[in-house]
């Protein structure tokens, strides 16, 4: 009898839960609720700011981390404040967020007007520069740069600032590291050596040369996929380059027009006034045909179209021999860190600096910032003050790292990658990488070399063009769905030839032509102004 009553109660509770879940959670309602609560909090903090006008101005510096929040955040924050409070009157609060949740956290912080003064835009979802500017989430920095940002202006230079400029307003500052990107083929050195192919790999200059290597590697061990792709299945279709001809030297390059990962409409450098639709190009068909052939050979990872891992992670798991990727100058160290193996890299092509690559990782001030001047003062230091750059990159000297005495730094005694309180792997992120000390194992003159390459880098003739997609957002929403439906299978070779035709038909139905035409109209206007 008691049990019966208990179960009746359970039923009632379950029903209530069901009812609550049925009407409680529309996405709009949750944001609205939290924003009401947060904005009052922001008002409070703004009020307290004014009363303490003699005190240093407090700003929040928000950055991404690849894993958990570093353990010694407070130590590094204190060390930074020891410099910034006396010198520029700014007290910095560091805020680390895991890269996966960063876009959502940014949106929440800005809609809720939480204290946030400096943020990094990253090439992912709503945290992308293009999205943040399209929704007016960032303030124009021109005046602030003139007053407080002279260090940024000299270090970054007008050339690179143009990439983050829209209609004359500079909305963010690109992080300074090697800005040229290179398309590479990467292969495991140990397997190459075991098969006596190392020399062949080092002098490979065409897809045929690579195919010869792949054939031999596959013959030697057919249980492991020769080629793997990152999530989305892109085995051979990397942005910026048509890998459609045999010889690397002849491969046509294009500007991806800064539209992130869709690459719907691009401009080829050999015809730099005309917007073309990437997926209709003959070159794209040639790439997809090649990948299908390779898939048929058994070379490609069979789960490539659905994998959620990056190609480096798959190689790390011992499930792949090589991959194609778009990387920075001298990417050997980064690939070794990511895969755990020595990788032999074959350079396929160097892409000119484009709007899209300058907009990948940038620093900006959100519209909700209460202290844009203080934020700019600190941002300027992250681009011009070695002490701040090294603190953010490596932590505190003698605690987290030590000077080796010959121009390099390495882990302090008893510290390694697993237990460091400031073991960040995001060194490309903080302001001006060219001021950072050089970690042991890199080339000693890497900073000078990178600077030289940046200064001499070829620049896309379309740098500074910014596509305003606000009149085609409905088309873009549908097009994005079509791309996620067809592209992964095509890029990983699983799809049949008919799939490409179906893909193009679906894109046309979703409004591809009006998207391309809109971009052409804007490009014509841009070129006419120039």
């Amino acid at each position, binding site marked *: 009898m008691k049990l019966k009553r208990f*179960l009746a109660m359970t*039923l009632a509770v379950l029903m209530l839960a069901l009812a609550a879940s049925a009407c409680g959670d*529309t996405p709009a309602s949750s944001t*609205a609720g939290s924003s009401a609560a947060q904005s009052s909090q922001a008002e409070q903090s703004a009020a307290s700011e004014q009363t303490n006008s003699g005190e240093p101005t407090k700003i929040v510096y928000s950055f991404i981390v690849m894993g958990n929040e570093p353990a010694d955040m407070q130590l590094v924050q204190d060390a930074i404040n020891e410099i910034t409070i006396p010198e520029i009157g700014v007290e910095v609060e560091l805020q680390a967020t895991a890269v996966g949740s960063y876009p959502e956290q940014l949106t929440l912080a800005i809609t809720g007007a939480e204290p946030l003064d400096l943020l990094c835009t990253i090439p992912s*979802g709503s945290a992308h520069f293009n999205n943040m500017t399209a929704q*007016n989430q960032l303030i124009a920095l021109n005046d602030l740069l003139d007053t407080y940002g002279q260090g940024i202006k000299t270090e970054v230079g007008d050339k690179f600032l143009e990439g983050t400029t829209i209609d004359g307003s500079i909305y963010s500052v690109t992080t300074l590291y090697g800005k040229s990107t290179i398309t590479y083929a990467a292969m495991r050195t140990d397997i190459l050596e075991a098969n006596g192919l190392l020399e062949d790999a080092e002098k490979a200059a065409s897809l045929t040369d690579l195919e010869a290597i792949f054939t031999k590697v596959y013959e030697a061990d057919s249980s492991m996929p020769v080629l793997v792709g990152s999530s989305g299945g892109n085995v051979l279709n990397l942005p910026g380059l048509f890998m459609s001809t045999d010889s690397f030297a002849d491969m046509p390059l294009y500007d991806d027009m800064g539209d992130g990962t869709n690459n719907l409409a691009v401009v080829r450098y050999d015809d730099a006034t005309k917007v073309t639709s990437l997926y209709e190009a003959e070159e794209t068909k040639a790439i997809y045909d090649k990948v299908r052939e390779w898939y048929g050979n058994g070379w490609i990872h069979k*789960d490539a179209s659905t994998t959620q891992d990056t190609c480096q992670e798959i190689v790390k798991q011992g499930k792949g021999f090589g991959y194609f990727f778009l990387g920075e100058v001298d990417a050997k160290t980064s690939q070794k860190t990511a895969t755990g193996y020595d990788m032999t890299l074959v350079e396929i092509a160097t892409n000119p600096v484009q709007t899209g690559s300058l907009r990948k990782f940038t620093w900006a001030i959100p519209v909700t910032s209460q202290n844009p001047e203080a934020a700019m003062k600190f941002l300027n230091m992250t681009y011009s003050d070695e002490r701040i750059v090294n603190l953010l990159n490596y932590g505190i000297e003698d605690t987290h790292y030590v000077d080796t005495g010959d121009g390099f730094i390495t882990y302090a005694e008893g510290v390694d990658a697993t237990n460091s309180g400031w073991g960040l792997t995001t060194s490309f992120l903080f302001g001006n990488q060219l001021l950072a000390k050089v970690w042991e194992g890199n080339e000693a003159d890497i900073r000078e070399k990178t600077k030289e390459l940046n200064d001499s880098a070829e620049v896309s003739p379309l740098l500074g063009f910014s596509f305003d997609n606000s009149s085609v957002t409905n088309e873009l929403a*549908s097009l994005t769905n079509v791309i996620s439906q067809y592209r992964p299978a095509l890029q990983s070779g699983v799809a049949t030839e008919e799939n490409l035709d179906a893909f193009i038909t679906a894109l046309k139905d979703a409004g591809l032509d009006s998207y391309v035409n809109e971009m052409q109209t804007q490009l014509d206007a841009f070129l006419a102004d120039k």
Partner: protein
Amino acid sequence: MKRKSRWLRLYPMDLMVLPALIYIIINNYIPMYGLTLAFKKIDYAKGLYGGDFVGLDNFKFLFSTKDAWVITRNTLCYNLAFIVINVVVGILVGLMLSEILRRVFQRTYQTLILLPQLISIIIISYIVFAFLSNESGLINKTILPALGLSPVNFYNDPTYWPFILIFVNTWKSLGYTSVIYFSSIISIDHSYYEAARIDGAGKFKQILHITLPQLKPTVITLLIMQIGRIFYSDFGLFYQVPMNSGMLFDVTNTIDTFVYRALLQFNDISKASAAGAYQSVVGFLLVLGANALVRKFDKESALF
């Protein structure tokens, strides 16, 4: 005078309801203001609600392609299938549980079938992947070769997915639905069954003439509530479990996954609100409709 005394008599009751009422107003009614976002262009410089009014512009992307038909069909058909199968299997398992006499076993089974409900859908998607993967899946690497069959590329072949999704959903939600029916079944008055036994009714007749009619109100309540959610889909089930594989979109794309993929690129809160508004308004109308239908045929069982 009479009125006042009535109020005085009942005010403790009103006071008791008050906290719940306040909670519902704060949690469920005030946020409805957020629906206005669906009709505005989001502009953070003007504040969350300060954007310009754009009418029904934000709704357009939902209906502009032939995907509109596919996602509506998939959402509705899967939900109908889930509702029917969950009722049938839920009652069946609830009955079986109620027939187990040893409390220990009853409890054990109940816990075991409830467990999948508590597993994160991401983990479930990898359990499914462990069966279906090309490179290392149990079915492709062990079972099919043992039977002398060639491997199947599950994540590129839509044929199997309606079954796989329904199977996974049933497996996941079985514990939850069966517990509701189980608790209703054991609260049925035992004297009915005693009377039936005296009249010579067997087990099957007892179920048919006593258990099922007694379960009717529970079934109808659950049904109406599920009909209200018929325009929503379990995002994890349709996005994570098929590993977001494009080749399966014909049978896995639902309103929620479509909206997610469409807005992933530019994260437009207004468009997301428009989709949410569309789903909840249609759901609300369907609940009213379903309840009206029930009222017409069986006034006692109607929800309101």
